[in-house]
């Protein structure tokens, strides 16, 4: 029997995807495709809320965890929180795109169709509890983004972005499938719970080596998706070449989807080999933070800088996974780590989308993403400059902006276990957060403290207006960054609720 209430978010979003295509064919302004998309996303929130507060609603038949299709598809608080995050981020991403797409002759209907289809994939991932569903969901997230990255068809850079992204994407899919097939082969199970149960016997038998290789390849596949060093090569070029709203989408929704897959697979399917993935992700986290930050120091273009910054941020998000490196890690420690990852993902979505929003708004007016051209921004666009400062310092983790809480729980998760290796990762992360401050502040210094360069049409820019949709997106993200920073329980409560399956170790 199919539980339609549980599937309602996916169904509504799928309906919206179709509606966007239909509206695109009607003789109305293309603007309406975006409106339909936004309304659809908003409507998707409703069933997520009713599912979440099922207990206190009269019409809601059965509450608690809903399993479907033989345990392959599960609606629990984890999937609901993450779905909410995906929908919220996609909502902002659409808002960021509207003005951008209208400013030039882009194909709007198709763009929203692809973006929403990709979001649908993310929703599926949050609920999938077997290898095949997870893979299908992941490819649904990634497939449309190849096209979106190349949306500026006339530009060589955009083409390069799409092509690189496509080739790496296919490669990572192949690596992931290879790993998954090994895992399936040795355990004979597809569902995560089945794999975990099966792996107990496998690890004692002759095939344990094969299982370990399978686990490592699966994790590598996800490492490409979350652009962890050394699998990050595509990221800066793709981020720079793609239209900026697409970059924002890639760095938040698509990346978060990768982390969601990693969370589900590591904690559920590979629950018996925590030390194995703990070690692997420890290394990836340390490398991503360090390499991402060091290269970011040398960047002169804001988008590229944010590209490397998102690699480094990905490293920070991986840090809690590294806590599992200790052989004697306890269930409570893993819960702590799970909590930290989810918290970081939520806060990261707000601040990174906001940062890209500012980049789009300023880029629109200045027609340049070079940091030196942004000099003196504060003197002619004080509002945008202030927001720039808020988002960049939030990314750097300076209280009282939301990023500090993400960093705090990240540190907390690795120190909880008390092992030496985990502690070492905390020290690496601490040094990295100081390095990161330097390049984030570079942009802020330029915008606040330097003179306006010659040739910037200041008066014209001052007159110019930011698209209302973009203003709304900036308002949402600014509020998020400030309010969460002052009152973090808003996020920690959600993350607390989301750690449903981090228990049982």
């Amino acid at each position, binding site marked *: 029997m199919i539980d339609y209430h549980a599937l309602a978010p996916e169904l509504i979003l799928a309906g919206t995807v179709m509606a966007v295509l239909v509206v695109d064919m009607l003789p109305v302004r293309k603007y309406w495709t975006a409106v339909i998309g936004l309304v659809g996303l908003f409507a998707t929130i409703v069933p997520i809320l009713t599912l979440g507060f099922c207990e206190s609603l009269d019409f809601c038949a059965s509450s608690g965890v809903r399993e479907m299709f033989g345990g392959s598809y599960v609606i629990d608080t984890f999937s609901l929180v993450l779905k909410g995050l995906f929908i919220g981020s996609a909502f902002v991403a659409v808002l960021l795109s509207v003005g951008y797409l209208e400013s030039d002759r882009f194909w709007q209907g198709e763009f929203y169709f692809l973006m929403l289809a990709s979001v649908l994939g993310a929703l599926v991932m949050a609920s999938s509890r077997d290898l095949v569903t997870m893979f299908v969901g992941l490819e649904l997230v990634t497939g449309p983004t190849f096209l979106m990255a190349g949306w500026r068809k006339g530009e060589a850079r955009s083409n390069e972005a799409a092509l690189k992204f496509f080739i790496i994407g296919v490669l990572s899919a192949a690596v992931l499938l290879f790993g998954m097939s090994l895992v399936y082969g040795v355990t004979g199970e597809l569902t995560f719970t089945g794999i975990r149960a099966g792996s107990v016997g496998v690890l004692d038998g002759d095939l344990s080596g094969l299982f370990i290789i399978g686990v490592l390849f699966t994790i590598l596949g996800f490492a490409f998706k979350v652009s962890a060093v050394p699998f990050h090569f595509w990221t800066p070029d793709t981020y720079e070449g793609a239209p900026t709203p697409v970059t924002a989408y890639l760095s938040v929704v698509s990346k978060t989807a990768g982390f969601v897959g990693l969370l589900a697979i590591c904690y559920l399917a590979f629950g018996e080999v925590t030390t194995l993935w703990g070690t692997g992700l420890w290394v990836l986290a340390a490398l991503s933070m360090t390499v991402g930050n060091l290269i970011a120091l040398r960047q002169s273009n804001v988008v590229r800088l944010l590209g490397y910054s998102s690699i480094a941020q990905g490293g920070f998000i991986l840090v809690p996974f590294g806590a599992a490196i200790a052989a004697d890690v306890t269930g409570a420690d893993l819960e702590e780590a799970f909590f930290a990852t989810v918290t970081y993902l939520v806060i990261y979505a707000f601040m990174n989308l906001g940062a890209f929003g500012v980049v789009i708004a300023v880029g629109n007016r200045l027609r340049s993403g070079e940091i030196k051209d942004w000099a003196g921004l504060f003197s002619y666009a004080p509002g945008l400059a202030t927001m720039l400062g808020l988002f960049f310092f939030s990314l750097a983790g300076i*209280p009282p902006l939301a990023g500090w809480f993400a960093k705090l729980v990240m540190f*907390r998760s690795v120190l909880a276990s008390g092992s030496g290796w985990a502690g070492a990762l905390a020290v690496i992360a601490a040094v990295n957060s100081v390095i990161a401050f330097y390049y984030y502040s570079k942009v802020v210094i330029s915008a606040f403290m330097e003179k306006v360069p010659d040739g910037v049409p200041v008066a014209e820019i001052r007159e110019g207006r930011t698209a209302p949709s973009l203003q709304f997106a900036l308002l949402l993200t600014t509020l998020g960054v400030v309010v969460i920073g002052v009152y973090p329980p808003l996020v920690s409560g959600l993350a607390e609720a989301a750690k449903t399956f981090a228990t049982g170790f």
Partner: protein
Amino acid sequence: MEWFESGWGLSLVVFLPLIGAVVLLAIPKAEEETQKWTALLFAGASFVLSVLLVFRFDFGEAGMQLGTNVDWITAINSSFHIGVDGISLPLVVLSTFITLLSIIYSWEHWPEPHNPKAFLILILILATGMAGTFVALDLILFFVFFEVVLLPMYFMIGIWGDRDEITIPVFNITTQMRLYASIKFFLFTLFGSAFMLLGFLVLYFKGGRTFDMLELASNGAEGLLGSGLAVWVFAALFLGFAVKVPMFPLHTWLPDAHTAAPTVGSVLLAAILLKLGTYAFVRIAIPILPEQSQNWAPVIAILAVIGIIYASLACLAQTDMKRLIAFSSVGHMGFVMLGIATMTPIGINAAIIGMVAHGVITGLLFFLAGSMSHRYHTREMARLGGNQTLMPIMGAILGFTAMASLGLPGLAGFWGEFMALLAAFSPAAGLSTTLFRTLMVIGAVGTVLAAGYLLWMLQKVNFGEPKDEWAGHEFHDVDIFEKMAWVPMIIAVIAIGIFPRLVFGATNDSVIDLVAKAFGG
């Protein structure tokens, strides 16, 4: 008045300036008068309430008072726990006092590029961060307030700071002083506080799963940590606090930051921000990690005394008046740290009165340096001279403040230095008397050097004949806003100098209690 004593009063003292900052955001940029009055209103209210706290404070009671403890981030067991005792009370009042005077002084003295609205917002955010740090009793809350002060100060230095071009030695980059100083200030502090946060987290996990400072102390968190780990935790905290103080050899950000900052920035930096570090030693390091504090005390004391001597010698080599005062801060904070390192009630009392005195005296010195460089358009002492003739009142105040700074008995600066040295004569049991007495002697030499460089500065700046280049210049002596800002400070310097009980009366019981709890004396 029940609501006032149940934490609301204290919360208002801390958050009124922040509310003021938000209100200021809504005032159009052109309406400068409204902005100034708004800022004055909120800072003034915060000061008045902090004075009211003093009257509501029960001086016979050593523990925390007038505070509250409500849930904040339950997921990580952190709560909004605030309160004051005799140690923090004087510092809270100092911070609201100096904030208010800074706004009064700013009234007609806006550094370039003007923009009073942004400048006032930054001062008010700073005020919340400073007062908050002194009242926070939860480590996470403390961390947040401790860091909140960074951004405003960073922007203050970076935007309104000194525009001289400098070349950075190793990297061979030419940049403006303000840009270099602001980022250096931030990176140093952030580096320290990142490790401080790690230390806090280890304390949490190993010390009984609480961030509450009082609970950590009474739980005997140090025993739970085990001495192997406690060393590292103390080292992490030390790094965070010592950068802020700043202690030699982590002090190098300070002269740059002070020199580059606009006048009000220097004043707030010297008067309050440095105290956050020393206060943290007293409030966090000693009660929670008493054994490690005692083990580290000789190191702290030695670094403190090196700081005293080094800073005095550096002062003698300065040509820039503001830089000289900045280095003198390093020396004075050295006395404060020496007092703390003795781990005795006398030493810690000395440290707190030293902090208050340094806040008022050095704050005033920076005001003077700022006003003078505003009039002469130079801070080069070689070009100044004859200030006493050109601006008699300014010269007199400078002379008075320099005397206070060198520790003249009867003025505020005397007590901190004298008692720190006195405490070093007989440090806490378990500390090497020989070492501390040696340090006392060296520290005493430092006071002589301090007298030397301050008199030397007076001689160069105040005395003698005006240089030829100033012939025909008309100088405005101290104006009304300067008087309104400075006279209260002068009164405070004299009052504390003559009645040190103004500070000791509050601190003594709490300090004795703190030392007794930490070392079981």
